[in-house]
């Protein structure tokens, strides 16, 4: 089980992560098309990277009418099977932190790049970190 976390103390707001993700996912550049987001707050005192939590109780997976979202056994990411996806956007609506984009009638979300996330590799400030969990201590007493 792996997921990303974003560190607001290190994020510089440069969007290189979004640009790289957009290129990897869609073959070109626009941060809006990256599968992660940077939000500015407190008069720009803070830039906060928002990344998919790869939730254990994933709303996106739960609501998909076509069952197109499932967990990848290897990376632990929730991935969209775009052969099956009908582009209805129900998953995007269900995600409270807006981590799903519908582009050209297909849903796109963070797939952890199969286990080696590009955003982690390109971030110049180390503001995105890949957490690999071996024991789920919090939910399994």
């Amino acid at each position, binding site marked *: 089980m792996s997921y990303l976390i974003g560190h607001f103390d290190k994020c*510089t707001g*440069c969007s290189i992560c979004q640009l790289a993700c957009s290129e990897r996912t869609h073959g*070109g550049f626009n*941060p809006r*098309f990256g599968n992660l987001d940077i939000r*500015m707050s407190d008069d720009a*005192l803070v830039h906060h990277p928002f990344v998919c939590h790869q939730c254990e109780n994933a709303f996106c997976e739960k609501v998909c009418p076509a069952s197109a979202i499932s967990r990848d056994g290897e990376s632990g990411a929730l991935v969209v099977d775009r052969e099956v996806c009908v582009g209805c956007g129900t998953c995007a609506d269900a995600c409270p932190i807006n981590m799903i984009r519908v582009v050209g009638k297909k849903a796109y979300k963070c797939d952890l790049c199969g286990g080696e996330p590009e955003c982690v590799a390109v971030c110049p*400030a180390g503001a995105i970190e890949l957490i690999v969990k071996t024991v789920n201590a919090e939910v399994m007493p």
Partner: protein
Amino acid sequence: MTSYMGKFLIIDLSRQEASAAVLNPGIQKLLIGGKGVGAKILYDLVPEGCDPLGDENVLVFMTGPLTGTQAPAMRGCVIAKSPLTGTFADSYYGGHFSPEIKYAGYDGIVIRGRASSPVYVWIDDDKVEFRSASHLWGKDTFATNWLIKNELVDKSIKVACIGPGGENLVRFALVSCEYNRQAGRGGMGAVMGSKNLKAIAVRGNHIVRVKDSDTFRKAVHKAYSEMNENTTGAFTLEGTAGSIPFANEIGLLPSRNYYDGTFDKAESIGPEAQRKKLWYRDLACAGCPIRCSKMGKIRSGKFAGTISDAVEYELLGLLGSNLEISDIRAITHLASRCDALGLDGMSAGGVIGFAMEAFEKGLIRPSDADGKELRFGSVEAADYLIDAIAFRKGELGRTLGEGVRQAAGKFGGEAEGFAVHIKGLEYPAWGPRGVPGMALALATADRGGCHQRGFPILAEIEGEWNGKTIEQLGLKHKGEMVAHMQNYLAALDTLVKCDFAQYGIQEDTYREMLAAATGTEFSFEELLALGDRIWNMVKCFNVREGFERKDDTLPRRFMEEPLPSGPCKGHRITGEDLKTLLDDYYRARGWDSDGKPLPETLERLDLVEERVLFKE
């Protein structure tokens, strides 16, 4: 498929109409992007001798061919005829506004005419809306940004706007570009204000693609490693604030309206002071790994609670040492006020320094300034003047809002002797008396007293350039060196590069990124020729506006008064020095002795043929 978007947005504010136009491919090939294409647009569309604050002036927001891609540190520029200098002016800004223009599908936005009442323009890809800005008029730049985002119900929209300074036609008003990155120099905000244009809001849903992704990615990563290996690491650590101890040590840090070149309290305005009293974390512009800016909040004292980005070198010099203000929290407050009210902090610092000297010399009395004592070192006086200028309060605020040159003309007499500007543009925080090459670069900069068109100081201090020995105080090779530096930077300004990133990224890497993104290949010689062509294109605009040799000069202070302290104590740039420097420089440029391009020079640079600008 290239990283150009293939069209421009033409906005006519008088008719409230917007249309798309395609740039003549021949012009794009010849001039590439930001500075070059912007200069051509201005040359063709702005009538000779027009009032910069009249509706005939044209305001252009240019991107570069690599803006919006992952190529590091590509910015945007605002171009118009300057109300401060009457020259061509190009004002560069970082942040996130310029990429958004590309994402909306445009290589640039050309704004003509004048709205009959305040408006803002809302560009949502192909949809362009003219919306009333009467409720925003009078609001500062920060409030305007957030009010527009709230109104359009999307925080991801990118905004460029003016503050009260631009509305009130202060000739050095800035354009505040998403988020709080300033197109500061030359009064682009006043041009926007004269057009009754409060803001431009953009949302783009296009993807910027490059010609050859794999080669492009390699070139980008090469640029990243060059930035890591070269001097950009110092910018990462402390931004340009790190230049304070350096400039003070070599005697170029202005104090008391450039009377001197050293400041005894330099340490208190250096990077350590900001780190201790302001900074929380690093801040970067779009796509830039350097992160030269910092964000922070003042923790204590009168200005506690102020959230601000790092005060960079120019403002530390001009709102700090030049005014003899040494409390970093106060300087942060003053810089932040300039940003909020939409004044170029550099020009504002120059104007305030001038006013303080005028006060001490009795040319301004307390009764002219609501009873205020406008003395050097007074934060209250500087604060008062920023407000008076932005809101054009009283006779003094109205006069100073015209800039140093016009204010000196009005005060008359000895005021001309301490009016520090070139062609009307207030001077940067690099006193030139110990560095004649820098003096030449400033005297010949296309938009007036600007240090960003060529910065020979480092070569003059290091004593070497292009394999030639350079003497710091000597004149030899300096004409040729300045022309070369201006050409190189003009070529990079047409890519709309960042000044700091170019200390790291090597010229071949810029060429590789451009080739991979657009298919346009250049040799290094061709890149320099491109810069030469653009420099001459701009010069043609300025010559048409009546600029000649006598305008390529220095403030009297630097020619008549020797430096009182520092390692270059006793030095000044004499009339004879300037004559030699200009003669060498004009010769290197292929210009006549009056500083005008010779016909064969324009021929060589392919600037003679008539070319239609846009295909509608």
